[in-house]
């Protein structure tokens, strides 16, 4: 791939600035900026709300040298709005003479401790890249995204060491026009916290939220079937 100059971060979480996707994507984009790249950020859910937003998305994607797609895993796949954006982008780019060499990477995080839940979503991203005439540079897959819960990666201490290191390595490679290195993929896939602790804290969190909402005794309700 050519040496990139402009990076575009596409955030695919409806939570926008409060999302783990945006925290991951912003950290990587800032490391790329440290290496001299320009970067822009677009929140997909907002962009899709208007024709003007969609047009602006198209034009910004066309100008980018690297597309960074950061999203949460929703039911084993990309969120619906992200798929919609990719459908629109692929349709448009098929009919355009593509700018040679523009690349794409994906950052996906899921709410389960194991990063391997994200595999299918990354395969779909790779397939999109091929249809949209983008060079697939690889994907980073994070499990236990709830542990970050949208906080900037510089504020999560030792827990985020591997995540930051993976993104640092990725930034170095991308800035040199190379693909995501295998060490970065491996580091990102390491558990943030032990699986048993993650699910224990998660379960306590559900109970606490239900208690605050006054529905603790209804947590297992079956409203659609007895």
């Amino acid at each position: 791939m050519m040496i990139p100059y402009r990076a575009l971060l596409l955030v695919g979480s409806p939570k926008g600035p409060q999302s783990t996707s945006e925290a991951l994507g912003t950290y990587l984009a800032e490391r790329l900026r440290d290496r001299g790249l320009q970067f822009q950020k677009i929140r997909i859910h907002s962009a899709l709300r208007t024709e003007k937003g969609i047009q602006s998305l198209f034009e910004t994607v066309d100008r980018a040298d690297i597309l960074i797609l950061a999203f949460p895993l929703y039911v084993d796949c990309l969120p619906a709005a992200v798929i919609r954006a990719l459908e629109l982008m692929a349709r448009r780019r098929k009919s355009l003479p593509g700018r040679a060499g523009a690349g794409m990477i994906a950052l996906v995080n899921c709410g389960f401790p194991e990063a391997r839940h994200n595999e299918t979503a990354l395969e779909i991203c790779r397939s999109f890249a091929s249809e949209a005439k983008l060079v697939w540079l690889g994907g980073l897959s994070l499990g236990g995204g709830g542990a970050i819960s949208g906080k900037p990666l510089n504020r999560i201490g030792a827990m985020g060491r591997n995540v930051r290191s993976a993104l640092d390595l990725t930034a170095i490679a991308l800035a040199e026009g190379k693909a995501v290195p295998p060490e970065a993929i491996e580091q990102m896939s390491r558990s943030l916290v032990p699986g048993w602790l993650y699910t224990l804290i998660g379960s306590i969190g559900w109970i606490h939220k239900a208690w605050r909402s006054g529905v603790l005794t209804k947590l297992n309700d079956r409203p659609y079937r007895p």
Partner: protein
Amino acid sequence: MRTLILNGFHRGDSRWQQASATLSEELKNRGWPCEEIRLCEMDIANCAGCFRCWTKTPGVCIVDDAGREVASRFAGSDLVVFFSPVTFGGYSSEIKKALDRLIPLISPFFKKIQGEVHHRRRYDRYPALIAIGMTEGDGEEKKRIFRKLLQRNVIHLHNPKSADGFIAEGEDPILVREKVRGWLQEVAR
């Protein structure tokens, strides 16, 4: 078997019509009542990822739109068919907007299934699932991803049985009918 067909073709795309008619006929021949929802005509908001369907109104999405209706019908069905153009190896955004809104049907709590953490079931029974992908000369790679996605969904949504298959654009209707019979047979066993 009460059957719900979720039609995930976009507005203006009519490639589904013939295969959908065949599917409805074959369901009728089996005596399985069937309802088809064209998702592109439904007002379904994107899932906001707020999890309030677990912690505020357990089992029901807080957004009161057609997404609730789809979830309710999904829960009340014995068989659900996703009929979608194969989109980068997955489902179309129309199918996915409905699928993302089905998480109220499972529990927030966790369980290990096949060595991985997943969410527990909320209901005792879940429908069987068939995913039919319409291809336009797509390669084997996209079909492999599509099959894998369905298998992941089946674990996630606790579907007891499943089948998948593909229909090519303009495929011989006799072959399509044979395929549909095969898929229905697979989930009827």
